[in-house]
């Protein structure tokens, strides 16, 4: 009973938060609503007994990702709204709903839900974090390491991409100047 109440409560909250994220035109509202939504999602993880995942969710999303977005936003002129041209909102809505219906239909189809068998059954007498750790460092060791490398690469990539030539504004430079920059920086796009 408690579980049900918690589920519906958090479900309602998450949906509302994410709807705000998607619908608002204020970037600040959006990022705040999303951060809240992320935290509410971690609640589901706790309900489902995935404690470790819930903790990760809060730490990574709300802590790291949201902070990153917040910093990112500082680079942009957030006061100047991007004028979002809305074209055919009905189609957008209809497509979204249709996709959702289809996903549900596929997931709840008896063929799918009955045919799944546990590959790595949960062990009864260990905590979630321990169980996760056991599986992660045995069966998923290689993907785990790869993920670690990927994160490292992403970090370096992010730093280089964002941090390069911080002292220069590419916007104000002429096309020729950019192409003559000696470090071989390739202009990403332009009106070619």
């Amino acid at each position, binding site marked *: 009973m408690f579980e049900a109440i918690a589920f519906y409560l958090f479900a309602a909250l998450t949906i509302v938060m994410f709807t705000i994220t998607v619908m608002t035109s204020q970037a600040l509202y959006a990022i705040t609503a999303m951060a809240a939504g992320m935290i509410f999602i971690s609640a589901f993880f706790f309900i489902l007994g*995935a404690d470790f995942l819930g903790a990760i969710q809060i730490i990574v*999303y709300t802590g790291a990702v949201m902070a990153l977005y917040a910093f990112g936003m500082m680079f942009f002129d957030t006061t100047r709204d991007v004028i979002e041209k809305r074209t055919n909102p009905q189609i957008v809505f209809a497509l979204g709903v249709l996709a*959702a*219906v289809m996903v*549900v239909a596929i997931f709840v189809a008896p063929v799918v839900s009955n045919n799944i068998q546990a590959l790595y059954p949960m062990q009864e007498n260990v905590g979630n974090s321990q169980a996760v750790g056991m599986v992660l460092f045995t069966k998923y060791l290689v993907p785990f390491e790869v993920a670690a490398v990927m994160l490292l690469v*992403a970090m370096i990539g992010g730093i280089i*991409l964002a941090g390069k030539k911080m002292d220069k504004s590419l916007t104000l430079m002429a096309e020729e100047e950019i192409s003559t920059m000696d470090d071989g920086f390739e202009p990403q796009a332009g009106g070619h």
Partner: protein
Amino acid sequence: MEVTLTHYLVLSSILFAIGLIGVMRRKNLLMLFFATEILLNATNIAFAAISHYIGDLSGQMFAFFIIAIAASEVAIGLGLLIVWYKRTGKIDLDQMNSMRG
């Protein structure tokens, strides 16, 4: 009032749909990133729920990796976004049409 897997899957689908709508209607690139985060989170819920109800840890593992990927995506994506912004001064999706065929 038992909460079943189906409930979670429906919730996940609704969130996914919200994310999808966001992806389609947003023209501000930053907001577009937010919408993709919603998509990822929606699948995460589905994975965790399936993991729970089937009694298999693989679902959680996938959710875990998805979080990792989401983190790297944000890092790289924001980096690119900044470069793009420095280059053009805009982060409007409608103005990125150099791929016109």
